[in-house]
């Protein structure tokens, strides 16, 4: 099916070529000609200007950028001893990083131009057909008006898509490509060049005997364990709390909820930083416990591996409970109370009515939420970084990865501390692979995706 569509598109160009008269055929090469000659002056001029500027850009920059993309620099910065001045002169070498960036930008410019060219061909054929049928050819004023009506998607989506491309897609492509280079600590431009290494980084990280492989798999394992525990502790405790507040005999429900919402209203990073200070070896909690006579030595909240791991999960529970409670409350209130009453009449105790009424409904409705939270926790940088910074550090791990590091915090430290961008990018791609698999399972399964039309 897909290949059929592709063939159709190619046939489409061929078809347009054949169907088009002379002017349209020439418009394949000189954009905007058809529009100009048939009365759409502004539009035609726009197309023409775009084509000329693209050709100019390509000649001046585009060609060299593309070559640079492939080679990523051939001339390293070198020093030549200058006999006259008695010091080393540095000759400017190629900067691999700028070449990669420029190359990626050029690729996008080419893609953009391809789209514009496609639009101009269509527009050429349309004007030809309109003229043949004797219909009115829309001028530029009509085109602008249509932007507010039949073509409103072009107007409304313009800025979002530009923002998306500039700030999300181009950087992402750039980083993905970086995973296939060797841009690490020993290959820093402008002093050194880096170059393409293909799948080498993946091989090193996944399968080799290097330290980095010995780091990747344990960190991945801890990330998964962390995601499971953090998601499900918050979920079940939130549900428990929501059900508790929702019980019949409890008054001032709003006030209880507000108390917990207040902890959510305080920005997460503030609470996390506060807790980091509180739980430090000489922090408030340890001091308090010693003062009260509970312990004689400080508890190693962050310095012992098992303690640190349990502590981050517990702190995350503290941070995440209110939002989980809010969501479950909303859902709980949707369960009709008649179900509970009839169950009571039939003699069901609280446990049974939970298992048969509350839980199935809750689980069904919150499955997408659960998986979204799970993926969020896989990437939950704040919860780990602000508390432990990824520590406790260990020599078993590669360059500064610690025992509570998630893949994302390790990515951050690789980027900011040791400038091993290629490894960071590789990890990023792995995270994407995991998240993508999980998300696809959710969205395929969830009714919302399938029944989107049902609402209308």
């Amino acid at each position: 099916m897909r290949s059929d569509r592709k063939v159709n598109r190619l046939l489409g160009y061929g078809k347009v070529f054949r169907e088009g008269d002379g002017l349209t055929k020439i418009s394949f090469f000189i954009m905007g000609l058809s529009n100009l000659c048939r009365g759409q002056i502004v539009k035609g001029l726009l197309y023409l200007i775009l084509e000329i500027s693209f050709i100019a850009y390509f000649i001046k920059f585009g060609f060299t950028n593309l070559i640079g993309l492939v080679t990523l620099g051939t001339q390293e910065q070198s020093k030549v001893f200058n006999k006259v001045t008695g010091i080393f002169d540095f000759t400017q070498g190629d900067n691999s990083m700028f070449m990669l960036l420029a190359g990626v930008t050029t690729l996008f410019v080419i893609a953009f131009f391809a789209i514009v060219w496609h639009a101009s061909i269509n527009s050429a054929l349309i004007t030809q057909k309109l003229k043949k049928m004797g219909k009115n050819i829309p001028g530029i004023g009509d085109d602008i008006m249509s932007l507010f009506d039949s073509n409103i998607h072009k107007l409304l989506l313009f800025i979002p898509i530009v923002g998306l491309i500039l700030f999300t897609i181009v950087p992402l492509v750039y980083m993905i490509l970086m995973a296939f280079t060797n841009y690490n600590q020993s290959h820093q431009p402008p002093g050194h060049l880096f170059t393409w290494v293909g799948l080498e980084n993946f091989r090193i990280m996944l399968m080799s005997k290097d330290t980095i492989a010995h780091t990747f798999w344990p960190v991945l394992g801890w990330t998964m364990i962390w995601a499971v525990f953090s998601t499900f502790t918050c979920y079940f405790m939130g549900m428990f709390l929501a059900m508790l507040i929702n019980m019949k005999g409890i008054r001032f429900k709003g006030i209880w909820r507000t108390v917990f919402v207040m902890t959510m209203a305080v920005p997460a990073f503030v609470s996390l930083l506060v807790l980091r200070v509180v739980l430090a070896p000489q922090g408030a909690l340890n001091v308090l416990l010693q003062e009260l006579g509970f312990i004689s030595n400080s508890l190693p909240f962050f310095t012992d591996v098992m303690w640190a791991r349990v502590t981050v999960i517990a702190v995350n529970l503290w941070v995440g409970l209110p939002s989980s409670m809010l969501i479950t409350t909303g859902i709980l209130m949707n369960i009709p109370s008649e179900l509970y009453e009839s169950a009571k009449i039939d003699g069901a105790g609280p446990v049974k009515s939970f298992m048969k009424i509350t839980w199935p409904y809750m689980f069904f409705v919150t499955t997408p939420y659960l998986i979204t939270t799970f993926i969020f926790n896989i990437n939950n940088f704040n919860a780990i970084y602000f508390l432990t910074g990824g520590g406790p550090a260990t020599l078993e791990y590669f360059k500064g990865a610690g025992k509570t590091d998630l893949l994302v915090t390790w990515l951050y430290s690789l980027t900011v501390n040791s400038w091993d961008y290629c490894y960071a990018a590789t990890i990023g791609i792995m995270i994407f692979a995991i998240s993508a698999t999980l998300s696809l399972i959710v969205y395929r399964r969830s009714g919302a995706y399938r029944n989107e039309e049902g609402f209308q």
Partner: protein
Amino acid sequence: MKGHVAQLNPKYMPYIPIFGVFLVICLFLPYIFIQNEGISKSGINLVMDTLHLMRSEGANSKVYLVISLLVVPAVLSLVFSLSTIFIKRKQIVHLSCIAFVICVISAIVLLLISKKTLDASEILSVKFLIKYLSIGYWMFMIVSLLGLITSMKAAKINPGYIVLTSMSALWLLPLAWVLMISFRAEIGSFTSYFWPKEFTLDNYKVLLTDTSQFYFAKWYANTLLVATCSCIITTIIVLSTAYTLSRIRFKGRRAFMNLALVLGMFPPFMSMIAVYYILKGLGFTQSLVALILVYSGGAALGYYIVKGFFDTIPKALDEAAYIDGANKWHVFTRITIPLSKPVIIFTILISFISPWGDFIFARVIMGDNYDNYTVALGLFTMLDRANIAAWYTKFAAGAVLISIPIAILFICFQKYYVEGLSGSVKG
């Protein structure tokens, strides 16, 4: 008729006196037990020792506490619980509830002050540690809890209140602590004692007026500016995208939605460095404009919740408007948006609050340009090794200052937040 009072649950009534009696028995069980030294003192022993001390050395007020905290609540509970046998009235059961509550509270307080009072009064020959507390104490605690639950159930009060109160206290504790620290007079990060010796407003003053190193007020203004601008831009982008995707079946719609899905799965920091270099190339680094652009640039990906809401607005409304001669733009601005107040408020709320809490992007883009910091970044910097000694309490003050407006915003708009979230969950 016995036990037949409408507001009491007769099933639990007989158990109340049992717990009351048990409680008094606990006073005779060993309260402190130190194996190595062979010391075993029961509650009554301690009371005797205290009275002894009082007589020999004159009154020592702290030591009175031991007596009152041990004996008085237990006796109270005994009295009220026993009287439930004879007087089957709601008020008596309520009184025994209160008595048991006092028992639980005194057990907790005992836990907290034992070390201080026992060490000070030297009744024991060694320094006190919590692990020396023995069966007498723990049974006291457990029995008073059970008694409380039973009397609550008898009075038809939901014992869930106990759990709620303890959880609320636990959750509010860190916040209360930060508040307390922000008023502490002694600077320096780690002290050897818990309760501050002096309280002062100095931290707030310094934070707001001393601009030599950290210009807090400017950070506040910076973050306000960034939050407002990115909020406006993000809302516009999200609304436009959501409306287009919801209402218009244009070519490439499915492709866009799939693309948004895929893009959302990449970890945000992957593009962090790349964005930094792009901005550097454009000359925007270390500026707040860069931050605004970064926050709102990818906003189109977050259309899902708003689109879900738009989907629930009946298309019949749109069509009626078309018949009346409106074009799609009119429908968007005059029909769809006014109807979507909850979800718009939700979007505004989320996009306004998130820049206040973001740290990563601000760190990467701002580097060491202290003046252009946002509050999040500034507060974090206050806690790094170089600054923590001098700025610890100011950090607490700053944390309080930043939390209050956001908390107020949140509480006011809590309803919309919940609606937005459950809307997304229901799909």
